[in-house]
């Protein structure tokens, strides 16, 4: 398999907005270490899940990969070249191949553009089609994602259709330029429960049909289990475990991964959880714990864990873990 995307030691620190005087007198600039040294690669044709709780840095990583944010340091290599060295024009052309599906379909569509205009806009921007040709392409993709009757919905506005249909519009817009790589950021989190499986199935089917590669960002482990080939678990700006999904989920190595998996509420009353749940909550990303970031909440922590920050080590075939005890 060829490597499509490679992320190398990516970091994004957001400056803390404090008062004028604080900035004058502060010795060290305080920052939020949203993404603090993340590295992974995505092979063409696979679905990599970026999984973690809120504040772990998964969404920020997604935005960095799309260059909607500039990094503090690190590289993102796409098609052999670092995207942060692309010119504005090159970047624009890259966006034809690299698309995104955001979490909130209502918020990601302009309320004053019809569905047809919204979906067709990328075609216009990249000069891929015009006039009747563009219209036809839009209708085609609308049918592919299940927005039917296409000629009727073409002229509707986002607020005139259902939530499930809106998400289909967003998906159609992402695919109309025939991209190679799609970043899906919590694409089903805001959909109604009975509609979620439909969107998931649609994403899977379209991946086959369009020969896509996905980066699937989510906090929902059960969903990631269903759609991802490989998974990277993030905690406080770092990847703690990464590998083939079946293996990571059935034989988790990092204590955080096993805790996460155990904490997911199972829709089966016969099943009761036995794994210990840590007390407390995720610490702030401004002052992360020393050494291994998970050590204050880890049921297996040893004194060394508060001193040494463990690097990612290969523990199985393409299975990496950042833990001092494994």
């Amino acid at each position: 398999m060829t490597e499509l995307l490679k992320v190398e030691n990516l970091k994004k620190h957001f400056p803390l907005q404090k008062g004028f005087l604080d900035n004058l007198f502060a010795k060290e600039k305080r920052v939020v270490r949203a993404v603090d040294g993340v590295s992974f690669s995505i092979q063409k044709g696979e679905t990599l899940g970026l999984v973690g709780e809120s504040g772990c840095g998964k969404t920020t990583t997604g935005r960095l990969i799309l260059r909607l944010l500039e990094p503090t340091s690190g590289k993102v290599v796409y098609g052999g070249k670092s995207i942060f060295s692309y010119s504005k024009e090159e970047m624009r052309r890259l966006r034809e191949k690299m698309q995104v599906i955001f979490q909130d379909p209502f918020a990601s569509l302009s309320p004053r553009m019809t569905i047809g205009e919204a979906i067709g806009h990328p075609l216009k921007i990249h000069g891929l089609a015009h006039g009747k040709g563009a219209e036809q392409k839009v209708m085609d993709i609308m049918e592919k994602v299940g927005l039917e009757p296409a000629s009727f919905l073409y002229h509707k506005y986002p607020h005139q259709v259902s939530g499930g249909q809106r998400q289909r519009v967003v998906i159609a817009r992402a695919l109309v330029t025939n991209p190679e790589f799609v970043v899906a950021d919590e694409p089903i989190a805001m959909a109604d429960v009975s509609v979620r499986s439909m969107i998931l199935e649609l994403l899977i089917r379209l991946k086959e049909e369009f020969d896509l590669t996905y980066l699937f960002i989510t906090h929902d482990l059960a969903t990631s289990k269903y759609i991802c080939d490989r998974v990277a678990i993030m905690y406080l700006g770092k990847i703690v475990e990464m590998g083939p999904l079946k293996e990571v989920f059935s034989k988790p190595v990092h204590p955080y991964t096993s805790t996460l998996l155990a904490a997911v509420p199972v829709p089966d009353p016969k099943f009761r959880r036995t794994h210990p749940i840590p007390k407390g909550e995720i610490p702030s990303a401004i002052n992360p714990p020393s050494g291994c970031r998970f050590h204050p909440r880890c049921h297996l922590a040893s004194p060394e864990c508060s001193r040494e920050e463990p690097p990612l080590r290969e523990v199985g075939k393409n299975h990496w873990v950042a833990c001092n005890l494994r």
Partner: protein
Amino acid sequence: MKTILEIKNLHVHFPINIGTVRAVQGVDLELRQGEVMGLVGESGCGKSTLGFSILRLLRPPGEIVEGEILYHGRDLVRMEEKELLSLRGNNISMIFQDPLTSLNPLFRIDEQFIETIKTHDPQISKQEAFKKAAQVLESLGISPERLLEYPHQMSGGMRQRIMIGMALVLDPDLLIADEPTTSLDVIVEAQFLDLLNELRRQYDLTILLITHNLGIVAQLADRVTVMYGGTIAETGKAESIFGNPLHPYTQGLLASIPNIKLDQPELHTMEGSPPDLVAPPPGCVFHPRCPRAMDICKKERPKAFGKDDRIVRCWLYG
């Protein structure tokens, strides 16, 4: 087990400019002492509206147009405002989805507790009230010094626990929890569920757990009621609903959610989307999406079939 709350034929409407939203259409529900009743359904099915109706906390233009809500035999719908006020917090409490917006950001936590306590017992001294608040927090595993903090100084999970504290400080026998974990991360959610389990034993609490998350319902609820489009689809013991769902909606729903413990080669997908409550379909409100809809389903609303604790509103069982 004693029935402490009984909802009979409740109808709640929201008259808005494009028509009337029939949020709740003829719902019957029974809550028994000490149980956790999971009220599940997706957004717009009326479950939150139902929860708010119990304490008459509906936002205008919402109004209860028909039905009774009997709390220990007294009808809450027709009760005098003054009497209802004394019930709120004291006998029936409610916690909401987003603790950041449910707590007053301008006041310290202890002040908010004391206000709640003093509202129901004006004679009590500030020190006494503070002691009560500290006691509750201890039972929640929170150190009493946090009483001197402000809401914004706390994390989401902590604020949610403070909210439970405020809801329980006056020792009510019924707690209504509206989507209490939706804004929480999965580990904090697990902590919260453990906490609720602890508390219900400690306080002999009855909990109405309103949520769209079938996972937490399975972990916590004794009985489950499934709602769809403003009506009840089915109700019964948790094992029965999950193990043997009768209503096609429940069956479809359970088959469509990813389960982390199972190997699911393919997820079931449900056609269509939740109904328009301004103009709900005639007959059974689910029939447009039902794979087993019959002629009668399109014309008449299904009656309740079944016995004892297991009831389903579907013509397939008539």
